[in-house]
């Protein structure tokens, strides 16, 4: 391997883990404010102290994760120029608009989060809760805008290619990528679902330690109210995402299934299970449809086979989460008047599935982004042509890798300590 292609890999690797790290904190920063406002709203409606306590505790967790999300997001915005200046030079006129809108939404989020976190004693209660609602709404909006950037990278619009140069640049049309709607919906649901399932797991674990604790029952209620609808809707949105991939990125679809040969009535795979004609049916709503295999595309254009692994992990965990949501709903409806299911086996299942949403989100990101390679902007700019001429990129790669491993460990420790305190006090 020559020095240049080694540096491309280091640049790709650094961008990949920076995003993989950031998105967990970003997702929590989007979903936790919604949960904490739900808790505060329940407190105002019912007057029960456990909801107020919950809103305060959740807002502490939000403060930690939001801050790390904010600084790691800053790193990303600079890394675009530090690692892929060629991409920014070409894409800036298109993605500048959604990035600017994202900046406005993020600014609003940071301002109102400050008011929410430190304004408990300085603002009237209704104003305080409204600040929390603004945080939740602007978090949602910043996710919408930033996902528009990625949709453009996967299915770029708003220009004409003229001998390798982009002409007739139209930044408004660039917002209308055919990937925009499903990527936004899929990503938002993933963020809410990953966070709510993790929160549900933490409080289910606390209920295993301290059965019947009012605080944790209240918390579980709220987390389920968010997790269940998201987990049920996600497979449907994922299906429409798959159809858009089939239409606009047939090579990515082949890589997701590891389909070597072009096949009519292609099967789908779910772990060891093979579903006859499943892929044709899901991708084209026709069991006999022809799905193009990897063989049809030049070897240099094919993404890494890890795309298939990512797709399998995402679908398996998404299916498990949807199954858990159906089970929970069934248990809940059966004992409607007595409240939540609190069988120990169900609590254990909820604990076990706690990380499923986060892992599925990361796996799905691998499908989207590794599946986009070798392109930075699909069909327009290759990643290798976008990379910086700066050499020795192993250095920043190793530096930030070390920092992120340390920060992940420290954030986990802080979280574990907060949870321990919770279960210790309730006993």
């Amino acid at each position, binding site marked *: 391997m020559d020095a240049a292609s080694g540096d491309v890999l280091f640049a790709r690797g650094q961008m990949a883990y920076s995003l993989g790290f950031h998105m967990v904190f970003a997702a929590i920063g989007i979903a936790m404010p919604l949960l904490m406002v739900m808790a505060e709203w329940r407190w105002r409606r019912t007057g029960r102290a456990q909801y107020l306590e919950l809103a305060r505790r959740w807002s502490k967790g939000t403060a930690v994760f939001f801050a*790390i999300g*904010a600084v790691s997001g800053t790193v990303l915005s600079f890394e675009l120029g530090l690692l892929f200046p060629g991409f920014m*030079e070409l894409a800036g*006129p298109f993605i500048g608009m959604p990035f600017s809108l*994202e*900046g406005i939404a993020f600014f609003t989020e940071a301002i109102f989060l400050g008011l929410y976190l430190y304004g408990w004693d300085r603002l009237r209660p209704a104003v305080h809760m409204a600040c929390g609602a603004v945080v939740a709404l602007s978090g949602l909006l910043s996710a919408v805008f930033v996902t528009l950037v990625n949709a453009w990278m996967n299915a770029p619009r708003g220009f004409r290619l003229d001998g390798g140069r982009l002409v007739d640049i139209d930044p408004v049309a660039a917002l209308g990528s055919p990937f925009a709607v499903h990527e936004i919906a899929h990503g938002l649901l993933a963020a809410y679902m990953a966070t709510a399932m993790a929160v549900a797991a933490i409080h289910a674990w606390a209920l295993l330690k301290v059965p019947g604790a009012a605080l944790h029952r209240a918390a579980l209620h709220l987390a389920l109210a968010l997790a269940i609808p998201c987990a049920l809707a996600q497979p449907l949105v994922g299906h429409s995402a798959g159809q858009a991939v089939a239409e606009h990125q047939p090579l990515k679809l082949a890589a997701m299934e590891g389909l070597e040969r072009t096949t009519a009535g292609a099967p789908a795979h779910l772990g060891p299970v093979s579903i006859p004609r499943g892929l044709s049916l899901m991708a084209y709503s026709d069991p006999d449809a022809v799905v193009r295999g990897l063989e049809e595309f030049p070897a240099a254009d094919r993404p890494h086979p890890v795309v298939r692994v990512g797709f399998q992990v995402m679908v398996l965990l998404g299916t498990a989460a949807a199954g858990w949501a159906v089970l929970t709903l069934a248990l809940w409806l059966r004992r409607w008047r007595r409240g939540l299911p609190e069988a120990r086996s169900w609590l254990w299942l909820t604990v076990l599935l706690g990380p499923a949403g986060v892992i599925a989100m990361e796996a799905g990101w691998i499908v989207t982004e590794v599946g986009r390679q070798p392109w930075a902007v699909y069909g327009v700019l290759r990643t290798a042509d976008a990379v910086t001429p700066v050499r020795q990129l192993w250095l*920043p790669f190793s530096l930030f890798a070390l920092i992120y491993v340390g920060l992940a460990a420290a954030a986990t420790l802080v979280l574990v*300590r907060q949870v321990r305190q919770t279960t210790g006090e309730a006993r």
Partner: protein
Amino acid sequence: MSAASLLAAAMLGGLAVYAVTGGADFGGGVWDLLARGPRAAEQRKLVERALAPVWEANHVWLIFVVVVLFSAFPPAFAALGIRFHAPLTAALVGIVLRGSAFVFRSYGGAPAWGRVFAVASAATPFFLGLVLAGVTLPSGDWLGWFPLAVGALAVALGAYLAAVYLTVETGDPVLRVDFRRRAIGSWIAVSALAALALVAAPDGFAGRLDPTVVALTLLLAIGALAALYRGRHRIARALAAGQVVAIVAGWGAIQYPLLIAPDLTIDGAAAPAATLRLLVPALAVGGALVLPSLYWLMRVFKSRPD
């Protein structure tokens, strides 16, 4: 005024606000690092309480500048990332560690995070200063006496602002005296480093300074010192912030019409007109949403001492 110049002016404005808000937050870390004596713990506590509600909003001004830069002037952003790869990477390390360490310390992490917060706060403006000096030099060098002096000046300006602000933000008269002494001390450091930077600057640099802006800066600086001396802390706060805005404006006047020396100008690096025409109203709407909210945030947390 062309759309490109308008957006460049917005960037300069964002940089100035970042300097007087985010810069002071970094300066708070400097005083955490230098906290000594019997009241060290109280001093650190005051810094923490002053930063907690606002530092994240203040930090977004840097993101604002970067986003406008890469949206409106993509080739300049690309050149910045290539030519200043090392100092920008170092500044990013500082930004990540400062923010994370601050919340870890506030929410039950190990006490060592307090150290990380302080060191990272002191280091970050130094590296940003290297970059700001480097983009004005035709050679693009970010290592040398001039960039080093500007880096040190950036650290000192943050510390100066933080000390002045903290005199207003504490209700404790003893702490107020502590920070008034620190404010006057850092005023002297700022003046010395500014003089050093001028001496170290390449030939012809001093001649590019706008005499009006220089005079205004000196007036504000002297006024701030006098107000500090007489214990008029609120007036000192306004004058010190004005002094830093004037310094950033002076830097902008030297730079105009260049974005990055020697060759990238505002018009030369501007994105296609279709993009610029869209960005201007988007930022105007954004400003109409963000600025009143920001004012409210500051009013809630900064209008009276704790």
